């Protein structure tokens, strides 16, 4: 199991280009055949644009084998229901699983 600690990318994660850049930066360290966990600890804010882009890239890369670790981060908890409704792909699936565990 691999874990991505989002605080490596900063305390405030904003914009799609930055979400894409973060994925491109971490991709060489990821094994597409292994599950990836996302850890939101020690991040103040993840905007929906950043999160959507990062998850889209990551789930395309490893066929949706992603787990969002439980979090109390208010910005993440606000974004998840909207992403779950708006998307009909791997992103929606992993977001719905995460919402069940919150």
């Amino acid at each position: 199991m691999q874990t991505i600690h989002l605080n490596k990318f900063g305390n405030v994660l904003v914009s799609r280009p930055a979400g894409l850049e973060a994925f491109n930066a971490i991709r060489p360290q990821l094994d597409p055949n292994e599950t990836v966990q996302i850890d939101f600890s020690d991040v103040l804010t993840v905007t929906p644009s950043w999160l959507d882009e990062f998850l889209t890239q990551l789930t395309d890369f490893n066929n949706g084998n992603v787990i969002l670790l439980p979090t109390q981060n208010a910005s993440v908890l606000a974004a998840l229901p909207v992403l779950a409704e708006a998307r009909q792909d791997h992103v929606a699936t992993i977001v719905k699983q995460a919402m069940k565990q919150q």
Partner: protein
Amino acid sequence: MNEDKIRIGEAAKILGVTTQTLRNWERSGKIVPERSVGKQRYYSLETLNKFALDIQKLGLAWSISAIPPDLPSEYYCERADRFTSRLSKMGEILLRTENVSQDLASLITLVVGEIGDNSFAHNIGNWPDATGIFYAYDFTKRIIVLADRGRGIKATLQQIRPSISTDLEALTVAFTEVISGRNPEKRGNGLKVVRRVLESNEINFIFRSGIGLVSIFPSKKMEITMADNNIRGTYCVIIF
């Protein structure tokens, strides 16, 4: 006394208030003077200028003037990377601000991040005149203002939905539907999350584009009405 050290009587004249008001503001933490060695109150000119500056009026001027007005450099983000860096700093300051919980700091930063980032994402390569955004905050007044001189919400959304004919319709679509002015990219969720956050938290929010006005106040549903003057791009005020 140094030129920059202004005594309470003079400071009151500069701000157009009484010395008693200044003392009340000191007690409430709204504007706190420094003390000389002899324990006398004094205010720096920089503190008074910052306090007197009305960031709402300045932001509005940026978004409605025919010619872009000069902005203090600390309020102008010409490029997105400057906005992002100032947003991170704002988040840190919010965390240290009295009566702001970590959750509220997280959510306010989300709202500001989405609004400011949208200005850049939807106008890149298409700014009608001045690029970039006005972005200012004053936490003594618990207010944040963002404004741009971009194309506005209607022109952006008309690219993918030409049937949109009014600013009110455009704002309704932007805040309620998952739609993107950058179709076919999979995007367009940001303002829906913003609305969700605002409708369930103690935050006052107005957002204007063209003659459309979105208002979201604590414990109330979003309202979209017509304003009495035209905003060139977008103008947003957040009070918490």
